[in-house]
């Protein structure tokens, strides 16, 4: 299986961010997208996730354009953006359950609890997320990665706000997903030693 980008171009307002971007991500591969602030990494990821239309070119999944596959493609995709996608008024537990519900994922309470515990949120699962620290909020939304069954992960700066231990843990989670044959596309500004099998780097500016 593979995700292919064909001659993608994106513009924002009058500004052409990039053009002629083509690449391929196969099973068990990780693609790291690099570039300075504002070069268009988030825009590219959103395009890959069908959250925006490309201004030129297209993206295909197993040979079919993703905009045509639509829900079929989306059901294989886990997206975590800049924002945490959590409701501040709900508890960590409830937030994760809603995420699973939205993604048609049937989980037991124990599985959710375990995921939160693994993310170092033991004892915080029943507090409204509003009263968690910045890093703990991020952890809540990342805990979903321990539950999802999707093949393709698209992560926009997943390491931000995390402390050293959590960065380390998340790295291992990503490596395991890759080893099991998953695909990961991510951006980060931190120098993180990604110890996975095959890492490709795409520099958007060059």
């Amino acid at each position, binding site marked *: 299986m593979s995700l292919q980008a064909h001659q993608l171009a994106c513009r924002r*307002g009058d500004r052409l961010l990039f053009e002629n971007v083509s690449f391929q991500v196969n099973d068990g591969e990780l693609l790291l997208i690099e570039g300075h602030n504002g070069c268009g990494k988030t825009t590219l990821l959103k395009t890959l996730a069908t959250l925006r239309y490309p201004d030129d070119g297209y993206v295909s999944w197993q040979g079919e354009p993703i905009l045509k596959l639509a829900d079929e493609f989306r059901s294989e995709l886990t997206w975590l953006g800049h924002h945490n996608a959590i409701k501040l008024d709900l508890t960590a537990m409830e937030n994760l359950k809603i995420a699973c519900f939205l993604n048609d994922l049937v989980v037991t309470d124990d599985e959710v609890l375990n995921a939160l515990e693994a993310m170092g949120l033991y004892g915080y699962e029943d507090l409204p997320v509003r009263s968690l620290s910045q890093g703990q909020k991020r952890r809540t939304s990342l805990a979903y990665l321990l539950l999802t069954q999707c093949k393709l992960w698209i992560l926009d700066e997943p390491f931000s706000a995390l402390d050293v231990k959590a960065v380390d843990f998340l790295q291992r989670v990503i490596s395991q997903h890759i080893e099991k044959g998953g695909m990961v596309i991510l951006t980060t500004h931190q120098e993180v030693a990604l110890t996975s099998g095959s890492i490709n780097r795409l520099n958007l500016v060059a």
Partner: protein
Amino acid sequence: MSINWFKYAAPSNFYPLAGKLVSWFMVIAFVLAVVGLYWGFFKTPDVLSEQKEYYRIIFIHVAAAWMSMWLYGMLVFWALVGLVFNTRLSYMFASAIAPTGALFTIIGLWTGAFWGQPSWGTWWDWDPRMTSFLILLFLYVGYMALQSAIDDSRRADKAAAILAMVGMVMVPVIYYSVNCPNPAECSSLHQESSTQQIEPNIKIAMFLMVISFWSYAFGVICMRVRNIILQREKHTRWVQDLEEINHG
């Protein structure tokens, strides 16, 4: 001779064409307005049924009222074309039509109010036709407000197009509800189309005014589309190569 219409769907081709059309439309509008007003003031009787001189507002009032409705239809048409074929130019048309449509609506309301004062003794009443006309104005204003509130032109176009279409679906419902909420008690200050029995000279003047308004609308719309094109495509080659940009 056959014209390749699709050629003009590209802004770069439409721009010069529109430039030529603008002046034509404006000339026609001006000439017809002069003739129409002349006809209206000097060839028509001084008294129509019980009304005196002031019935002459009709030449502007009715023409403006018609225009405002037609233009809304056109706006929705272009919005629909834009949504279906994803052509930039049609969105530009839709957004260029809106201010003119709103203007005519306001003229219709304004002249209506001025007419109502002498003939019904009131500036405003909740007559169904007036009410639905007011709602039409709200639809125009909503369209423009939404579009101007969105910075990204692509999103602005599509969002406003959806709004216009929802408005269109609602127009018959609104019209019916306002006009005849209760079939048994429909009443209206506007007499139903007394236009039929009107004196022929009035008809001629009115006809001239309607055509004049049409071509004024086309002219202004073309002008506005040209501006929108320049604004949106200012980063492209062909705009930067334009003579009026480089010299003006």
